[in-house]
């Protein structure tokens, strides 16, 4: 039993990475939000399992917080934004998807290699998860780079936060509660601000294409 639970955390880490990859290769915005929701749920489950294994009960709280924020509230907000802005269409990416994924594989190899010496140092329950978390962060970054619309970029930002959170939970058994609450609030506020921002962009340019932001620079 005790051997199985760390493996389960590993599995959840792998699922997180899988979802991050699915997000980089997904064209549809609605599906992107669904994937993000699933990522949040996986993260909450992983946090709870880590909490159970290490008997740190404040992790249950942060798992609950994750559920409320990332599974319920933020997806709901994003859906509302999509409804209000009336965007349901496919998004085209800057680089075609197989190429993005190929770069993604390179990023994963890089992240894994980077994490191997570090993970030997840490005594955490699942030493491989650090590499996975790092890969998740980098992949989300990659996704933000390759998208041309504002909404996927926001989702990429949130997914990056998921990766960081997973690294914090799995590698160091969570941060102090205050920090976690602070980060949770930060993310929420960030989404709200970005939401407002998106409406502003739309009003200004009649589209959410971030190419238009290029016009804002001084000539």
């Amino acid at each position: 039993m005790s051997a199985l639970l760390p493996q389960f955390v590993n599995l959840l880490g792998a699922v997180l990475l899988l979802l991050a990859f699915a997000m980089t290769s997904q064209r549809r915005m609605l599906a992107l939000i669904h994937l993000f929701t699933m990522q949040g749920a996986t993260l909450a489950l992983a946090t709870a399992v880590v909490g159970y294994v290490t008997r740190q009960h404040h992790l249950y709280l942060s798992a609950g917080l994750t559920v409320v924020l990332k599974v319920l509230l933020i997806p709901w907000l994003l859906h509302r934004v999509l409804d209000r802005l009336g965007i349901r269409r496919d998004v085209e990416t800057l680089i075609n998807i197989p190429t993005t994924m190929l770069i993604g594989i390179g990023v994963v190899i890089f992240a894994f290699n980077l994490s191997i010496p570090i993970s030997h140092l840490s005594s955490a329950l699942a030493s491989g998860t650090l590499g996975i978390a790092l890969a998740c962060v980098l992949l989300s970054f990659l996704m933000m780079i390759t998208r041309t619309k504002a909404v996927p970029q926001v989702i990429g930002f949130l997914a990056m936060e998921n990766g960081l959170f997973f690294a914090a939970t799995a590698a160091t058994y969570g941060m102090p509660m205050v920090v976690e609450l602070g980060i949770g609030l930060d993310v929420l506020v960030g989404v709200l601000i970005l939401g407002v921002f998106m409406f502003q962009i739309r009003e200004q340019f009649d589209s959410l294409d971030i190419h238009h932001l290029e016009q804002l620079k001084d000539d």
Partner: protein
Amino acid sequence: MSFSGVLSQLLEIVIAIALAPLLSGWVNQWRAWLQNRSAPGLLQPYRMLHKLFNKESMVADHASSLFRMAPYLKFGCMVLACSIIPTLSTDLPLAPAADTIALVGLFALARVFISLAAMDIGTAFGSMGARREMLVGFLAEPALLTVLFSASLISKSTSLTTIVETLAHRDFAIYPGMAFAAVAFLMVSLAENARVPIDNPATHLELTMLHEALLLEYSGRHLALLEWAASLKLFAYSCIGLALFFPWGIAEARAPAAMLLALPALLFKLGVGGFLVAVWETVNAKMRIFRVPEFLATAFLLAVLGMLVQLLLAR
């Protein structure tokens, strides 16, 4: 080579040949029900095969012997494939003849011959079908191989029976890399069996079809053999999937009595799997043919990623 080994080998072949059309019938039935249509009977594929075998074969005037040979060859390949995949037992005398790499090679051999046969008549549809089939094949084949490699890295073996024994009968462990492999395998097997979203088995629209375009010139017993081989292929892929991801219930070499339990377990797993395929085909739509390389490239890369995750976490 023991007596029970020979017995389980023969039993497995017979069951594969006999049950494969039933699986297709089962999927078709559920799909019809889920789409609010009245379904053909469960035994419809058998009636269909019987009818086709009774009919005379029409062959184009200029068809070469390659064309007439291909259905038998594909059927033979698929039967051999089914006989080396552990469906009921891992005690298979034929299994050492071909490991996972040879199994993928076997599928490739069948694909090459059927594509060549489709090109033989020289109609526009045939050559288009052959091209598309090879297009799907060249991306699906490495993806499938990579999925199997992930399993090989766990069990340190490319032999399917050893893989199944490792996964099913040693200490229970979770292999995170297999999560990636599972998704990739699902995508590959949908593509290889001409299922939604790559191909729609229910249509005969020439511009969208893939599997049908290859069989267009066949009739009578040749067509029957090819349809039978197609359902054997579905059966084989389902069994590979079950063996890799749900290996519990397959009898070990030292326990022939466990085969009594293995058959109901197999039927149950196939039943659930078939139902899920029907649900998948109902809720999804076929994608454009230009998107197919992207879909399969994704599958290939996911499989590679699974291997990487496996290597990272195995240390």
